[in-house]
């Protein structure tokens, strides 16, 4: 992989001047993923969401690559169609047989974990040569911080409120990355925008692979997480070092987990505490909830170690 100096010299897929917030993880995810395209030409698509509305305000368009937005729940299906057009037209001799093109769909967690899950699952199952990238900021940020199935347990959101009888979202996050791995596709990975080397490396693999690939990228939303906009990458690293958001990949069925060094290991409360969306958890009476969240994180890490062990001989 190229070093950061070389990466920064690569042509930008997403131009400056878009209207995403300062510190938004979504634009960082797009830029880092597109740095991984190397010599491939790409066509990008996007589900309805912050990224789409902020980068395509007519008559402006921040995308330096061909771009399509269709609706909220169908980025997977829409990009399936774009990829199918390439294949069909190439077969009919309308596009040169040696032309290479890659297809990348972006969606937030709402458009991916929730409303777009069926469309994504279909696209992955059918084996399109398509990379689906979820920029996971853990809520419906575009409509004003409503909970999604990606919202962490205990997090405040405007539809998982904190009050006398409720302390944020009662349910745990859906493990979408494992669900995608269960599709048996050639490449699945989890990354963050704060671990750029790891992310660009994974994007390179995802784009180069012949067939479907899925990237789940933690892309913090300072507005929704109630953190300063300068903290985006730092909170990602706290997520990784607390094992809240493990970095892992599944390459042709083989699971690989990036370990957290002992000197870097922190507790999950160190990740939760800087975020205003979790501040109620630190009030007296919610100790058990914090313990439960830590136990969930530990159990998930053990589950991942089991997947690594179980697939080591593949």
């Amino acid at each position: 992989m190229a070093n950061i100096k070389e990466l920064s010299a690569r042509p930008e897929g997403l131009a400056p001047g878009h209207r995403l917030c300062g510190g938004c993880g979504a634009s960082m995810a797009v830029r880092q993923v597109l740095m991984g395209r190397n010599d491939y030409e790409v066509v990008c698509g996007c589900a309805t969401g912050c990224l789409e509305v902020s980068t395509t305000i007519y008559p402006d368009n921040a995308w330096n690559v061909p771009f399509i937005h269709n609706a909220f729940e169908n980025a997977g299906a829409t990009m399936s169609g774009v990829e199918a057009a390439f294949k069909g037209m190439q077969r009919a001799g309308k596009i040169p047989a040696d032309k290479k093109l890659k297809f990348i769909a972006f969606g937030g967690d709402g458009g991916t974990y929730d409303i777009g899950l069926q469309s994504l699952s279909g696209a992955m199952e059918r084996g399109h040569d398509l990379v689906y990238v979820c920029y996971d900021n853990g809520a419906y940020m575009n409509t004003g911080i409503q909970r999604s199935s990606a919202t962490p347990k205990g997090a405040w959101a405007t539809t998982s409120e904190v009050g006398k009888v409720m302390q944020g979202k009662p349910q745990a996050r859906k493990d979408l990355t494992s669900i995608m791995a269960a599709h048996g596709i050639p490449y699945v990975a989890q990354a963050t925008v704060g671990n750029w080397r790891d992310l660009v490396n994974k994007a390179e693999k995802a784009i180069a692979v012949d067939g479907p690939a899925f990237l789940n990228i933690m892309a913090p939303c300072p507005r929704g997480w109630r953190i300063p906009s300068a903290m985006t990458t730092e909170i990602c690293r706290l997520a990784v070092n607390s094992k809240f958001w493990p970095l892992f990949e599944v390459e042709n069925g083989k699971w690989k987990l990036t370990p957290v060094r002992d000197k870097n290991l922190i507790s999950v409360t160190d990740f939760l505490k800087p975020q205003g969306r979790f501040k109620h958890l630190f009030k007296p009476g919610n100790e058990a909830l914090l313990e439960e969240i830590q136990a969930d994180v530990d159990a998930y890490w053990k589950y991942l170690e089991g997947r690594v062990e179980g697939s080591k001989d593949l």
Partner: protein
Amino acid sequence: MAEEKKMFSATGNQMVADAMRQVDPDVMAAYPITPQTTIVEGYDKFVADGRVTTEYVNVESEHSALSACIGASAAGARVATATSSQGLAFMWEELHIAAGMRCPIVMANANRALSAPINIHGDHSDIMGARDTGWIIMFAETAQEAYDNTIVSFKVAEDPDVLLPVLTTLDGFVTTHAMDCCVMEEDQTVKDYVGEYHAKYPLLDTANPVGHGMFATLGDGYMKYKYTQREAIEGALDVIEKHGKEWAEITGRPFDLVDAWGTEDADYIIVVLGSCAGNARFQARQLRAQGKKVGVVRPRVFRPFPAQQIVDACKNAKAIGVIDRSDSFGSAHAPLALEVRSALFSAGVQIPVNDYIAGLGGADITLAQMEQVFTELEQCAAGEAKKSITYLGIDE
């Protein structure tokens, strides 16, 4: 020329599948639903046998079917699909988007009832739900017409002055599944007629990157955009007639926006869409033999609505009966009746109109019902009032 063509028996669905095979679109993305299934099954066999170069996408739902078609069309491909009933209803959001993004997709619809209660048989409840989505909508009366309409649809959709999606529809079971006498043109004749499709702003042209599906929320951009859509579909009527006549010239089979039978001197006229027109004409012939001046008018195109042609065909009648195969609940009139009344009113033509609903959920449409309508039209012209809408064939 026409008499040399081999006549054979086929269902409407077979004819639609063959029309699509002859056009050989770059992409078909489809999901099975009764009574459309034999179109997609037939097409998949063409793919399996290597008779087409189409990339066939076996999507996991109708919503994804049309979503993939939109992606493929924006990419620059010639695109086809087919659906019916709940499937068309499930596509509702994407119907608007396909038209708004000016994707010239051709979609066959096997017209069928909508739930609830669930019913798999023919009527127009599904397709009438698409009437305000911006799609051009054609109704076939026969399997042969389903074939011809499907071929003409590609030419109309992709016309640079139109660039709108087209629904080429045929009635569930009566036309989709019943065997009918048909003829087919040579593959090359069809290919020459539709020609090659070159998209104006294809996504796959990476040297000239474009954005499709932009966010037009500021100022009056959205409203201007919608205005161009209205202009496009209004102008499409002439384009449909032009390309339809061109196909008629090649095939020797007539193509009219409105099929008008016996209207030159008819006092009483039934206006009806699709397969039911055959019953109406058969009964009209019986009545003509008894000296009654009756006629039948059948729009072959419903969107854009051929209002002037309807007025021209109906303007000398004493009473008109409109038979709908769907209802518009809460409206005083069902969809076709609304259009006919609006056309007459706008033209300043004052003729009494009786509204009927028949054949919902595949209920039999009988000659006796047609006779009842003609009889009531005579009574209507004689000044006998009738209640607003009559459901034919049931004890109300």
